[in-house]
């Protein structure tokens, strides 16, 4: 067994690949948070009065709230006055085209494997690239516009489509929702906005790529997706950050509003800097993601591959309000070294015949702690609601922990709720079996882990699935040995 643990150690201690920083001239707000800072952010973004008021209201609510401490994670108190709430690369006010974007910025994203030059992108993915607080560029905008699809940075949406933003902002995640959502509502800097008109099937994957570059800054982006009746969109989100000794706060909000017969698929590959092997540095990832299935027969699928962050606090949820609507949550969360993850989902069944499915696969290695926390709530009028949940945990080594906190509240006796859970250890037997066939130790672990997570990985769009598989192996590199 000792040997087995050594293998695991070795495989899980590979260095973080995206730990470099780019030298980009930045413009930022002074440290700390008060109403003046919020006014500063709002003014920088030339926002209308209503949005400034909205932010200030959120700030006042936030000030009265207490940071939640119920999650199964431990971290020192965050000093909210020691964070920079706005940082932006210095460049011309808003580039009209890619030619106007600072080449250093484009290079930064090239290094991450994300080309913002449209002719180079053959994969059929439109990207909105967000560096620190600001959207750098959005590709394929014109092509999408022909179909009436709006895909742009949040700031641009505020300028160009204020009526849509005003109508849906906070409609799924109200500013009062929780501490981090309130903070985000007050200081959010940028993010992506997406609107798919009635009956339109978005022909390409839409993607937002977030990159934290500046030191001491928090990242507070906001994504709003509105899918009109009968529309479909598949949305991807990726993220990385440089290696830094101090912790950085990331508190994002994602809202998805889904109308009748519409279907939104949202996939995340989260690879924020997780801290070093001793647990120094890393991103605190406190994120609120929620989808409202407002109309009949609407559908939302969340798929997440969580490999990064020192702390992950994240529960992508579905409010199943429309009759016959359905929600899915597929998750792989890997923790290694001193990472802590408390993640899961909430399925709130309000409408009749609503269905939800939860598949969660936790993988813990090193000295990490990995918790699944989920709630299935079936309300009184949700006749014939159904839920199926499966929560599996895989342990690598004997110094890590796996925890499951499922909550089930049922108020309607015609519903059916199923919950299955397993905990297993990556077997010495399995590794030996692979090795006896000539497969080296690291490939053996990667093979076993990918097999374990297969049901979730299968949900990802093709090009993401390959990346996610590699990332799983990379995250666990050094955990065997």
């Amino acid at each position, binding site marked *: 067994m000792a040997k087995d643990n050594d293998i695991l150690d070795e495989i899980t201690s590979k260095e973080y690949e995206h730990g470099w920083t780019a030298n980009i001239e930045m413009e930022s707000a002074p440290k700390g948070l008060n109403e003046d800072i919020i006014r500063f952010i709002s003014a920088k973004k030339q926002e209308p009065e209503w949005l400034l008021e909205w932010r200030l209201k959120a700030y006042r609510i936030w000030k009265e709230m207490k940071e939640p401490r119920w999650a199964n994670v431990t971290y020192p108190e965050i000093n909210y006055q020691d964070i920079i709430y706005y940082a932006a690369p210095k460049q011309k006010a808003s580039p009209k085209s890619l030619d106007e974007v600072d080449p250093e910025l484009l290079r930064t994203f090239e290094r991450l494997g994300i080309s913002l030059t449209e002719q180079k992108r053959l994969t059929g993915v439109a990207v909105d690239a967000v560096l620190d607080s600001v959207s750098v560029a959005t590709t394929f905008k014109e092509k999408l516009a022909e179909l009436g699809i709006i895909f742009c940075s949040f700031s641009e949406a505020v300028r160009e489509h204020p009526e849509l933003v005003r109508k849906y902002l906070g409609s799924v995640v109200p500013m009062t929702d929780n501490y981090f959502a309130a903070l985000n509502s007050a200081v959010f800097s940028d993010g992506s906005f997406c609107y798919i008109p009635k009956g339109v099937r978005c022909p390409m994957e839409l993607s937002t790529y977030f990159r934290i570059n500046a030191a001491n800054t928090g990242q507070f982006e906001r994504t709003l997706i509105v899918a009109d009746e009968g529309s479909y969109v598949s949305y991807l989100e990726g993220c990385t950050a440089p290696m830094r000794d101090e912790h950085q706060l990331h508190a994002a909000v994602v809202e998805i509003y889904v109308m009748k017969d519409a279907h939104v698929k949202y996939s995340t590959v989260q690879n924020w800097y997780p801290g070093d092997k001793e647990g120094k540095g890393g991103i605190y990832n406190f994120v609120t993601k929620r989808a409202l299935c407002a109309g009949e027969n609407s559908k939302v699928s969340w798929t997440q591959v969580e490999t990064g962050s020192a702390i992950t606090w994240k529960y992508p949820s579905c409010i199943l309000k429309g009759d016959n609507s359905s929600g899915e949550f597929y998750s792989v969360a890997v923790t290694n070294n001193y990472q802590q993850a408390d993640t899961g989902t909430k399925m709130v069944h309000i409408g009749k015949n609503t269905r939800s499915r939860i598949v969660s696969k936790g993988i813990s290695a090193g000295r990490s702690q990995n918790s699944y926390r989920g709630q299935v709530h079936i309300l009184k009028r949700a006749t014939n609601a159904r839920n199926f949940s499966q929560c599996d945990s895989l342990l690598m080594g004997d110094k890590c922990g796996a925890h499951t906190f499922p909550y089930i509240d049922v108020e309607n006796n015609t519903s059916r709720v199923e919950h299955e859970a397993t905990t297993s250890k990556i077997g010495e037997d399995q590794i*030996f079996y*692979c*090795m*006896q*066939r*000539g*497969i080296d130790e690291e490939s053996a672990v990667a*093979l*076993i882990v*990918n097999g374990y997570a297969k049901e979730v990985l299968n949900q990802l769009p093709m090009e993401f699935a390959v990346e996610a598989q590699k990332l799983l192996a990379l995250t666990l590199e050094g955990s065997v040995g």
Partner: protein
Amino acid sequence: MLTIRNLYARVGDKEILKGIDLEVKAGEVHAIMGPNGSGKSTLAAVLAGREDFEVTDGSVEYLGKNLLEMEPDERAREGIFLAFQYPVEIPGVSTINFMKTAVNQVRIHRGQEPLDAVSFLQLMKEKMKLVDIDQALLSRSLNEGFSGGEKKRNEIFQMAMLEPRLAILDETDSGLDIDALKIVANGVNKLRSKDNAIIVVTHYQRLLNYIVPDFVHVLYKGRIVKSGGKELALELESKGYDWIKSEAEVA
């Protein structure tokens, strides 16, 4: 091909192998028989490189190299194959995917090009026939929910795919009915050649009716106490292990 000299191995404080000597040449089939707990499976595991067992004395030379210094995956790539008594389940990994990874790692080690999907599939179809195995089974998670017979056939299928120099079959007959046994034995026989060698570890003589050995060795209390030709197996079958035991105790 394989020379074992005075091999001692233990698990924890318990000495299991107490001085094994064995010489296996290319083209030969050796059967290792013996009562339960005599150390048969331990010998197979030590040769494959299982870490649970500590070799305390002796040497094993394989194709001119010190086998005991090699990692299990290195041994496999050098042509040692162990058909497991209890094949391991790996959920979510199909036999096809598993074999593709293994075959290509072995090929790279031998300085060959990795196989592309098409040539791999061709090779697979050819080898599937040897043990009468269905492609649908190979698309399923490795060994998960397989019957005893399916697991053993899958082991021999993998052996065929990897084309080992030295194959060790650990109680491959256990849990098989006579039809499955014939299929498995038939598959093994087709893989016999003058260039490779096979060690068959078994408790019963039954399997040796179908895989006819050149040599039979009886293992008792961690030592080879008797060696002979294939007739030795028949003798054991009719007399049981007791006479061997008493003979060994007297000696």
